[in-house]
């Protein structure tokens, strides 16, 4: 019996992935201080590497059609080791969710509502996320179709409006920074956006055509990746040497738009669009966390866990992070390394073990 009864189409999966990757425009801030004006190169590199890694996830999903990640782990590693690995992933989803909650709290606090307690913002945000997650993946996927368009259009329009302010000499000299920094920056971007596609292993079983996940996911990643590249190019060309310094390059770049003294302060639209995207990302992680826990404990429905896990993630976020400096420090220097374990090592191992044990032959056809 499946926990999730909703079914999504491959078009919806495409837009879901698109939203998911596009949402990295704000968190990309963490990469600017490392790679400076070559960040756009890092984004392209991360896009390519991320797509390759995504192929691993997709082939893992294709080996076990109709099974979500927890079930796949159980099949590959047996009930006990599999449970252990799955619980690591549940914890990982939960912590990522709390990180996103904290990030959006901090973002809103900085740019929209300076004098509000952060817990209040996080509770409001988590409330709508919980609402969406309770409605199931179908509703989240349908919403993402609309949510994907708005930020993309805003990125294009603001880029066009900023053409006057852009100085393309800002890109020169290309590859000035040491290659080590570029690698680190690429790693950070992969970590905060592209390789998080892993979480879709919980969602692919809801797809109406089981084995057709490859095209929508890769297309979604690449199309959204190109939008990210455009956004990054816009920020660097506009801000130049300022881009590594400011709190949020996207916001600051768009703030410079001034057309006839009427079209000003457009960054509020960027903020609104990014809230939509961060909402989608949080929902996906939220959903994955709840679903994986419910699957591990073999529940009949995941609904009752939704609210309490939301509360738990808020509490976790409040405990974990004290300042923006701390969050950005750990994202810049530490968490990319530790997350290699989740993004690269375990999925590769699962794939190899599955091939060695020839599992799909036994389980694929029933």
């Amino acid at each position, binding site marked *: 019996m499946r926990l999730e009864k909703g079914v999504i189409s491959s078009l919806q999966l495409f837009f879901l992935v698109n939203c998911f990757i596009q949402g990295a425009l704000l968190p990309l801030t963490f990469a600017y201080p490392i790679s400076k004006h070559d960040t756009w190169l890092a984004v392209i590199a991360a896009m390519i590497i991320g797509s390759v890694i995504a192929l691993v996830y997709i082939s893992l999903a294709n080996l076990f059609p109709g099974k979500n990640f927890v079930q796949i782990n159980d099949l590959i590693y047996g009930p006990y080791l599999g449970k252990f690995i799955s619980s690591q992933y549940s914890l990982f989803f939960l*912590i990522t969710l709390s*990180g996103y909650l904290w990030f959006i709290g901090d973002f809103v606090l900085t740019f929209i509502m300076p004098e509000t307690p952060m817990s209040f913002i996080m509770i409001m945000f988590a409330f709508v996320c919980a609402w969406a997650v309770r409605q199931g993946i179908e509703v989240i996927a349908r919403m993402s179709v609309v949510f994907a368009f708005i930020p993309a259009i805003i990125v294009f329009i603001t880029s066009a409006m900023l053409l006057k302010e852009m100085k393309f000499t800002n890109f020169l000299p290309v590859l000035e920074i040491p290659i080590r920094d570029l690698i*680190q920056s690429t*790693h950070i971007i992969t970590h905060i956006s592209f390789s998080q596609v892993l979480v879709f292993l919980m969602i692919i079983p809801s797809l109406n055509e089981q084995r057709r996940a490859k095209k929508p996911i890769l297309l979604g990643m690449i199309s959204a990746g190109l939008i990210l590249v455009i956004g990054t190019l816009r920020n660097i060309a506009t801000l130049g040497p300022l881009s590594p310094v400011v709190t949020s390059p996207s916001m600051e770049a768009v703030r410079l738009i001034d057309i006839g003294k009427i079209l000003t302060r457009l960054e509020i639209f960027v903020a609104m669009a990014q809230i939509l995207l961060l909402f989608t990302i949080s929902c996906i992680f939220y959903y994955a966390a709840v679903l994986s*826990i*419910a699957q591990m*404990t*073999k*529940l*009949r*429905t995941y609904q*009752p*866990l939704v*609210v*309490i*896990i939301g*509360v*738990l993630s808020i*509490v*976790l976020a*409040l*405990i*974990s*992070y*004290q300042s923006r400096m*701390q*969050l950005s*420090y*750990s994202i*810049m*220097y*530490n*968490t*990319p*390394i*530790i997350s290699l374990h989740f993004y690269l090592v375990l999925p590769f191992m699962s794939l190899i073990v599955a091939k060695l044990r020839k599992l799909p032959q036994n389980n694929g056809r029933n």
Partner: protein
Amino acid sequence: MLLLLISAFLGVALYEVPSLIRNKYWRELVVFSVFFSFTFMLALLQTLGFQIPSPAIGVDYLVEDILHINYR
């Protein structure tokens, strides 16, 4: 603040538990109560002013000072 916290958690419990009992979802109720009590404990400690060690700082410590595999 404490009252607010307790009433919020009570609200969550009242929202979820009756339907679980009505449907006889005992397993779900157990898992729910485990998470509920864990979250409540964390939140209570946080509100009462105990310093709970931050997991994020813990990860930083693990990577930097034990494994020495961080960047830079």
